């Protein structure tokens, strides 16, 4: 018994070390100067510095090769704005659509739903070239609105398909019962269907937020520097005179903080199965 326990603990530690290593490594890098990171042979001991973070926040970096202006904080703001608005819009459109796909059978319903999903399969580069031409014609190039619109390609299918599953899992009888009680269709949707699919909506929202946050190629092509999110902004650290590993690491740490916080916060929600005990059993 005791041996089994020790072995299990050992196995768990190994798995944990394997998965956490990149994150810990980046975290450590973010407290080192570029020189320390690139030192050969690498050393596990270093003098921690906040220089990378200070440079990111002050927007000014002095390196051996010269000075560099960083728009990181602005990029971070862009990321938050783009991701939040995209997810909000996708939820607004996707949740009712998911409900319709789950509850009603209509002509071409399955085809439409599948087409939506297939947007996730198509390589983005395939559509980017024509899209950027259209956007230039429409004046949507390098606008927040244009980016949020394009981000629906990422968010909408996710939300649609995840939330649809949750709607399908809830017995329609529960909504029927509410209708029969004398409530309108809209109230049955907002008071019964949406709360019951709550964990699913939260999960889908979180997931699409992360995907939107991590998107790189849409913003790279369709936005200029002042609309770019952190993913694209990090490119600025790849300078002619070298790659600023310390700042990249610090930027990564800062940019995963919002999604990490969100995931931790939403976790208890995601596991709480609201619909337990709703029907028989």
């Amino acid at each position, binding site marked *: 018994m005791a041996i089994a326990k020790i072995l299990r603990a050992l196995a768990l530690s190994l798995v944990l070390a394997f998965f956490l290593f990149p994150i810990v490594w980046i975290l450590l890098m973010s407290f080192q100067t570029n020189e320390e990171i690139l030192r050969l042979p690498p050393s596990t001991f270093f003098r921690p510095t906040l220089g990378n973070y200070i440079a990111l926040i002050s927007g000014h970096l002095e390196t051996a090769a010269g000075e560099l202006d960083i728009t990181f904080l602005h990029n971070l703001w862009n990321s938050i704005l783009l991701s939040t608005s995209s997810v909000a819009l996708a939820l607004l459109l996707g949740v009712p659509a998911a409900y319709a796909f789950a509850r009603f059978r209509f002509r071409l319903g399955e085809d439409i739903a599948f087409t939506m999903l297939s947007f996730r399969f198509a390589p983005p580069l395939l559509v980017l070239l024509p899209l950027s031409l259209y956007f230039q014609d429409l004046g949507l190039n390098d606008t927040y609105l244009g980016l949020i619109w394009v981000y629906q390609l990422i968010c909408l299918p996710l939300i649609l398909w995840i939330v649809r599953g949750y709607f399908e899992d809830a*017995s329609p*009888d*529960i909504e*029927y*019962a*509410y*209708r*029969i*009680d*004398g*409530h*309108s*269709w809209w109230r049955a949707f907002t008071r*019964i269907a949406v*709360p*019951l699919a709550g964990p699913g909506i939260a999960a889908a929202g979180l997931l699409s937020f992360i995907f939107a946050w991590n998107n790189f190629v849409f913003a790279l092509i369709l936005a200029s520097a002042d609309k770019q999110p952190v993913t694209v902004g990090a490119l600025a650290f790849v300078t002619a005179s070298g790659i600023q590993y310390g700042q990249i690491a610090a930027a990564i740490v800062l940019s995963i903080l919002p999604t990490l916080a969100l995931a931790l916060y939403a976790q208890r929600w995601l596991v709480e199965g*609201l*619909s*337990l*005990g*709703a*029907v*028989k059993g």
Partner: protein
Amino acid sequence: MSGLAIADIRAQFGRNEVLRGIDLAVAAGETLVLFGPSGAGKTVLLRAIAGLEPGATGRVVIDGEDVSTHGPESRNVGMAFQNFALYPHLSARENIASPLRARGVSAGEIDARVGAIARLLRIAHVLSHPPRALSNGQKQRTALARALIAEPRILLLDDPLRNVDAKLRYEMRLELPRLLRESNAATIYVTQDYREAMALGDRVAVLQNGVIAQCGAADAVYDLPANREVARLFGDPPINLLPCRPQAAAGGIDIEAAGFRLHLGAREEATGKDCLLGLRPETLSLSDHPIAGGVAADIVAITPLHERQVVLTRTAAGEELVVSVAHDVPKAGSHVWLLADPRAALVFEASAGKLIQAPMAIRGCAA
């Protein structure tokens, strides 16, 4: 007329005609049991009446008012579902209060009425619990309270006792008739359990292949089932069906099947046709010594049911017959003699399965 009248209700899913023209009338205060095998369309019919089946056509008239075009929220029906369909995120109290909230009843009155019905159904102590903290019996009572609380004109109960344990099901079978009578609603009660149908139904309508195959008093359905399928479903242990070809005889027919020789009055139309002789297990008697007209058989096994001995026997010809008697029987393997009561014998056409019956006609249930 006060109550419910439905006319020519039809529903079709794809090419599958689930309901093929249903006419029924249920008076206020009356309970009509809708009985039928699973998949017969019982639930679809209830939903059509409630206004939840957009594809269904036909007329639904409640207290003289045609509500066919009304949405489910304005038909003033109460419904209980087989799976309870409680709102999982609301307390039992809020579940029950929901119909009153929809009607804009004041908070004070809601409290009073929810309290009263909860006491009546013995769930007052669990009103603050969410559905997941309730036992199946309490869930079922909560669902029933929600269906009843707004005093609907029409009550639709979709097999509400299916998912509760045997003891509670029995208790509810005794309590429900009074509750339903006092609600004074026109009630349609769906079940697949013929005992429930007999216990609760003022009348029973048998839904089969999308039409009402038979409608009448419960014991009339039991005594004179419209066809072979109804006879098989309505009774436990089920009726014995023996192939036979009746011969003409004075004033009726003679039947020879599995060794039984019976003379039945009237029913001459069965003469010379391929038929099935239906003998309900409890109309057969069993004796451990030879009796005149008795058919010799061996007891294969005895499986007691509800204080009766259900005896599986096999005749010399290899025919299996189920007999149900209230007295003790010899042990398995014994040799016995079976006697059929010609007054309780039923004759069905073998192909269509229709009951061949002279004395009484089988009536419908339309208004």
